[in-house]
């Protein structure tokens, strides 16, 4: 792993500065939320107790942050060492993605000072899906930082810590694969409890499986997305051959997902509802249409996959997967009694700010710490 090195270069680029400005605006709204309550910033209400802070920052955001999970799975469990150069950048993105999801939860929960109750054994409710998700995400954030820690020990030449980390790193990687498998599927189980409030197009006993599969697909798509952009921005050399191989795995997982998803809707007799032309039916069609486009590109153009085409596939998969998760948590959710919800400006700004912080921190880290490898492109076929 010693090939990884810091990229160096100017820190205050245009992107970095824009991200800082957006983060600054978000900090203003965060301060407002803590001084005057959630209602002063967000449009959350008693019918829609969860808004974009949960649906985007946690549910979609952690799926975007599954790159570290899938790469660890691929490299260390399935033993595909050739993808090694992609692990650290993916881990870095995951680390920030999950950390900011944790921050977002803290903004969202109303009684944050009581959060310690999650760690009191006599308060723990082992029957609660929320408890499992909270525990897993909390632990996984820590695991991600530790998984990433060799980067710090390399940078600062902390030999003692490096040796210690080397001894436990395999256990951390193991946990780093188990924990997302658990909580990503549980994010699906979570909404089963919403019962009739959730439209039948999304309320299905396959939700845990669908959430796990979208986490894997979106994790890979994010690796492709992020590697394509950073190889352009930082002129890292061509990674297309490696990414094309990953896209084969994606097409299998995505194909399996689509079979399960559509077969389940068909078997439960909801296809009529899907094609009824109703708003929710159309949202369902749009979500799956995007994923099918991604699947078609990855499967039928696999032998002449240009970087551009691969990037398009990654983007439609990320959007489609996000839409599936949004639909499950907000759009397909209807508590009745005339309640409605649309995120307010302040609420949205906090979400944008968290994304901006993530990008800013990422660009800072890759310049300062050894994240990217100066690798030779593996057996490029083109």
């Amino acid at each position: 792993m010693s090939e990884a090195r810091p990229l160096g270069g100017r820190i205050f680029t245009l992107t970095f500065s824009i991200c800082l400005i957006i983060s600054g605006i978000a900090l203003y709204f965060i301060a407002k939320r803590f001084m005057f309550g959630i209602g002063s910033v967000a449009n959350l209400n008693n019918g829609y107790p969860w808004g974009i802070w949960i649906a985007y920052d946690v549910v979609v955001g952690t799926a975007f942050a599954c790159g570290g999970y899938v790469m660890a799975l691929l490299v260390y469990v399935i033993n595909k060492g050739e993808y090694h150069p992609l692990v650290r950048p993916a881990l870095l993105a995951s680390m920030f993605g999950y950390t900011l999801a944790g921050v977002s939860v803290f903004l969202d929960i109303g009684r944050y000072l009581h959060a310690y109750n999650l760690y009191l054994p006599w308060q723990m409710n082992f029957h609660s899906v929320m408890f499992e998700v909270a525990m897993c995400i909390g632990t996984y954030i820590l695991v991600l930082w530790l998984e990433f820690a060799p980067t710090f020990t390399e940078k600062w030449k902390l030999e003692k810590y490096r040796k210690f980390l080397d001894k436990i790193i395999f256990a951390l990687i193991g946990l780093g694969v188990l924990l997302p498998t658990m909580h990503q599927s549980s994010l699906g189980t979570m909404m089963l409890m919403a019962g009739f409030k959730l439209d039948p197009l999304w309320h299905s006993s396959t939700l845990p499986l669908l959430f796990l599969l979208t986490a894997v697909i979106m994790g890979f798509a994010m690796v492709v997305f992020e590697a394509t952009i950073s190889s352009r921005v930082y002129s890292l050399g061509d990674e297309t051959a490696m990414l094309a191989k990953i896209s084969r795995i994606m097409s299998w997982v995505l194909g399996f997902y689509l079979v399960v998803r559509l077969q389940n809707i068909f078997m439960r007799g909801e296809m009529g509802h899907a094609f009824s032309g109703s708003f929710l039916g159309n949202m369902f069609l749009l979500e799956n249409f995007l994923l099918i486009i991604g699947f078609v590109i990855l499967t039928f153009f696999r032998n002449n996959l240009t970087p551009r085409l691969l990037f398009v596939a990654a983007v439609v998969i990320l959007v489609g997967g996000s839409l599936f998760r949004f639909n499950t948590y907000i759009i397909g959710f209807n508590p009745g009694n005339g309640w409605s919800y649309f995120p307010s400006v302040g609420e949205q700004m906090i979400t944008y700010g968290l994304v901006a912080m993530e990008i800013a921190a990422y660009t800072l880290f890759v310049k300062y710490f050894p994240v990217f490898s100066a690798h030779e492109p593996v057996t490029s076929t083109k």
Partner: protein
Amino acid sequence: MTIKRRDFLKGAAGSIAILALDGQSAHARTVQALPPEALGILYDSTLCVGCNACMAGCKKANNMPPDFVGEQDIWDQPVDLSPNTLNIIKKFTNGTGETKDAEIDGYAFIKRQCLHCVDPSCVTACPVSALTKDNNTGIVTYNKNACIGCRYCQVACPYNIPKFDFNNIYPQIVKCQLCDHLIAEGKVPACCSVCPTGAALFGRVTDLYVEIRKRQQMVPGKIYEYPVTSIDSGATHSYAAPKYTPHVYGMEELGGTQVMYMAGVSFDKFDMPAYPKESFVSMSSGIQYAIYKGMVYPLVVLAGLVFMVKKNKQQEEAETAENAKDKKEENHE
């Protein structure tokens, strides 16, 4: 005291499950049955005159502030359950709204509050056991000292009962707790104790079942004695039996509730959702328990993962070391 002991046992069971990986203690969940001494309320819409005394009584007993509507700050006028209102009487009207308990050109009242489900979603949902169902009385209570404000109970509740004041800096969940503080003193929940007609009737759920069956067999128009306040209070109110709709809400909905409803019009008129017998809790938890029963599967998977990673990692390190050695040798040459 009993609560403390139970909580201790639960905590102990949890700790054991984690430490000793004892599958049995963590896998305690079965579909809930009605607790032996379950307490509840029978609300009879046909007896209700819409006086709202129960709403005033509820506010007083629970120290809840009034809900002002519009400019005025004199009258408590909630339009629905709210962070300040645990109990509300709502009215259904149709057409001219002349006849009581008629679906056409009529009106009828309904009392909305926590139904104290036999198998409550909120209790299963709550990650920190802030919402608990008493093993004996079945009352679902809330502990603000445990609550983290995640609002999963609101998402999970099929009746949209728990409320949260988003405009408060540090809010809490509010919902009816069946005046458990009054019951502890041997009293009756405030809404029932002030109800003049017995429309809200407190009692043991099994006794209320008997009362329900009795009312179902009454001859419409004939005068009967209806118990007032609580089923064993002895006080009664004479009233000509109405024509009840056969459906008793809360008998079977999602596994049943301890607050039950009888009415002269069908319950969809009150926007009371039609629910199947099986609770959503049993559906979602069934999946959850199958996977996480005693954490056995996750730990087995973890062991497998760690083994694989260790093997692959060592292999990789050996290769890297070899490469490094080769490079060194090349440099030396």
